[in-house]
């Protein structure tokens, strides 16, 4: 499903590589935590998987496709099979919860009818039933992140990438978001989550990949934060 083969990435102007000969393979339906100190290269992996950046060497496969050689006009369609959640939610402030989720459908050409059918469903799934018409500033951080998860999931992507989705949330809210991601994972979606939250990692007991200075130092099937 996801495969990095000897990937090295050095940003322009950077003195040392942010990822150094990284190989990792993630199967369909897996749930993987990427952990490691700040600046170790976790977000860089997410960006590679989204084809926001390209590696200097090595191969990146996502959904059986070689991302490194993908033509730029194919990227949009490719991204429709990936959902993405970030620490800062990235919601549109002038749109309601419903509209934020529907926006993701509209801009890839889905009809309003489709949106009317699936958006309430997915908002219900993330536990926001009844709050569809609230604007982001009328929602708590946890609720905003639920909207973001709903938006990432509304297209039923094969993969959900989450870069510190609980980074701005208190421990209880974090656990709730975590349960939500777990539920999404149970629908068969591969989940890749970058986190600093030892609590969550220790509770979930899922596969843990630890990175340090751009190198994988640990890859454990039912790991803890360590």
């Amino acid at each position, binding site marked *: 499903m996801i495969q990095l083969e000897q990937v090295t990435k050095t940003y322009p102007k950077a003195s040392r590589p942010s990822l150094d000969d990284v190989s990792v393979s993630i199967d369909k339906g897996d749930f993987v935590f990427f952990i490691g100190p700040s600046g170790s290269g976790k977000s860089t992996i997410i960006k590679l998987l989204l084809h926001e950046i390209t590696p200097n060497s090595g191969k990146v496969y996502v959904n059986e496709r070689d991302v490194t050689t993908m033509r730029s006009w194919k990227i949009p369609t490719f*991204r*429709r099979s990936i959902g*993405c959640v970030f620490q800062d939610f990235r919601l549109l402030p002038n749109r309601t919860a419903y509209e934020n989720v529907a926006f993701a459908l509209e801009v*890839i050409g889905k*009809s309003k009818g489709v949106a009317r059918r699936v958006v309430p469903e997915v908002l219900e799934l993330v536990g926001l039933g009844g709050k569809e018409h609230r604007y982001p500033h009328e929602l708590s951080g946890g609720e905003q992140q639920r909207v973001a998860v709903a938006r990432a999931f509304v297209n039923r992507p094969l993969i959900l990438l989450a870069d510190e989705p609980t980074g701005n949330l208190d421990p209880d809210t974090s656990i709730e978001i975590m349960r939500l991601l777990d539920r999404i994972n149970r629908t068969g979606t591969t989940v890749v989550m970058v986190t600093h939250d030892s609590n969550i990692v220790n509770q979930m007991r899922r596969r843990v990949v630890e990175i340090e200075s751009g190198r994988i130092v640990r890859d454990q099937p039912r790991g803890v934060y360590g």
Partner: protein
Amino acid sequence: MRAKYVLSEVVTGLWRNVTMTIAMMITMAVSLTMLGASMLVYKQVDRMQSFFYGKVEVSIFLKTDVTEAQRTSLQSDLKGDPLVQNVIYESRDTAWQRFKTQFKDAPDLVNATKPDSLPESFRVKLKNPEKFQAIYNKYNNRDGISEIVDQRKLLAKIFGIFNSMQNVALIVSIIQGVAALLLVANMIQIAAYSKRREVAVMKLVGASNWFIQAPFVLEAVFAGLVGAVLAFAALFVAKTFFLEGALKSLQTVFPPIPTGDVLLMLPILAGIGAAVNAIAGWITLRFYVRV
């Protein structure tokens, strides 16, 4: 659905930066008016040139003391000349008659001129009007000839004025065009900045590039089209109220511009305005804003 979305984005985009949009449209209008005017002058001068040059002749004026023999030998040489299409002899008397009718509105001038002060001449029409120099070289040293005059030279002066008018219009349109292009780039940068969150989300969820870029490009195209319509209106008003109104007396030298020519400017200017803005917009998005 997609078209509706794109259109509503265009409308909100134009409205959000309404002062910018207006500045854009005005600049575009001025630029296209100048371009249109220059094209009209160009066509007009072309038309006038082929009209007048078809009529112009070379005048060979004879000295007052020209002998009969000189005149007849010159006439037969001209008739047999391969460069010459036809030759008309104009005696002093006919020259005088022609002068009188030409200046019948200026009796003082006619009265002040003695009938025999006008020289006799040959009016020579060349097969190729450009070949004046060859004729001149051939006949200039002949006895009995006082002067050989190319009427084209006189016309060339008039057309020179038209040409420089056209050049001025063209230069102004280019300068304004550059200003318009910079405004397009600026307008798109502002639009892209004010929509950066939406653009980021669209990229994230996999909206196609054209879908992201179309509203921006269409805003620029719309501004270009409005500019073209304004420019067309300006040209039309200039033609009806200026050339055929206040400056009507000029029409003896400057024949009226056909309405068809002016009407043709609408699609031409609209096409140019839309295409130029679309390309400028797209380049801005592609290489500068990187939407």
